[in-house]
């Protein structure tokens, strides 16, 4: 099972990103361990400079802005 973390300080885009991943995982029937990280020091350990950012299995795959549906699909499938 994949561990997916959405990093962000609680802005609208971060919530949208979280919801998009949750919904797309549900639609695809993939069970994921989805988590929202809002604690700043924790976010900074991934060395991102713009949020929302997405971390999969402790690897940073995206930062800055809401990801596209297509890229979420790729993350879920890979």
């Amino acid at each position: 099972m994949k561990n997916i973390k959405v990093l962000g300080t609680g802005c609208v885009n971060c919530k949208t990103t979280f919801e998009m991943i949750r919904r797309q995982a549900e639609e695809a029937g993939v069970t994921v361990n989805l988590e929202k990280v809002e604690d700043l020091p924790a976010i900074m350990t991934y060395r991102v400079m713009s949020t929302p950012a997405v971390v999969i299995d402790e690897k940073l795959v995206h930062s800055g802005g809401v990801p596209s549906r297509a890229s979420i699909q790729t993350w879920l499938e890979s």
Partner: protein
Amino acid sequence: MWNMVLHSKSELKIFPEDYPLIFLLVAVLLWVMIYSHLSDFSVVLVAALPMAQTGHLADALRFLVFEVPKVLMLLIAVVMVMGMINSWFTPERTRAILAGKHEGIGNIMAATLGIVTPFCSCSAVPLFIGFVQAGVPLGVTFSFLIAAPMVNEIALALLFALVGWKVALLYLGLGLSIAIAAGWVIGRLHMEAHLEDWVREMARIDPAFRPGKLSMADRLQAGFQSVHDIVGRVWLYVIAGVTIGAGIHGYVPQDYMAGMMGKDASWWSVPAAILIGVPMYSNAAGIIPIVEALLAKGAALGSVLAFMMSVIALSFPEMVILRKVLKPRLIATFAGVVASGILIVGLVFDAVL
């Protein structure tokens, strides 16, 4: 039927991807053609309405029907171009450029890069820490942090569309000057000790930066994306703002504002404009149509610019976010230095013009 729609949509999507330059050229030509005829359209449209063609309502409507598409078209064009330019200036690249720069030249570069680097106030803190970690001096970081929200493409495009290029240029120059000067002053004050402890304890990182390879089609895509994100978010504010502006144009008597915010108003009109501006949290999109209306009704340029800058650059929510990384004294210094800069600009303008 549904299939057909999907099919044609994917073809539409593929064209700009395959021929980005041709697409850009065609788009620019179409844009210029429509934009240069907007005034005619609005006259024809209002003339077709079954109502009196003279009087307040017709004036306000003609203004609205002309102004809304004009402003939205300009906004789309500027956001599109900036979205593409932004794809060259990622925050990581800007940081690599600024790391190790000395104060002075660093402040100037930071403020200038603040215009072209994509910035959202929700990312202000990660960006701040990222800069400090990579060894960008505190004052230089502040120059960036002040310029990025204040001198942004939306503010400049709207000022240009509604008030004219002179005021837009003036705003650009003054915004940059305030960001450079305020950052420099904060750097001189050596307030590194007033960063929150956990920020100071974070490991230094190497700002080395590998530029990703982006094709023209990718940059075009980035432009579309930012039009979708930004215009999608602010179009309603623009229409609301222009509508309020149209109401002011049609109904508020000329020179009504002159008494309160005009040249001959009392000395306190600039500080009052700044104080009113701070708790107001609006983006450029909502505030500039109102700025235009205030100016048209006789408010002085200095007071209005000061008001606008303080609404955009000094917002209460941003202070709350920054409080997570800055101790109260540094926040207060930041707000105080920026407010003084705006105050000087406003007072000088009201006195000179």
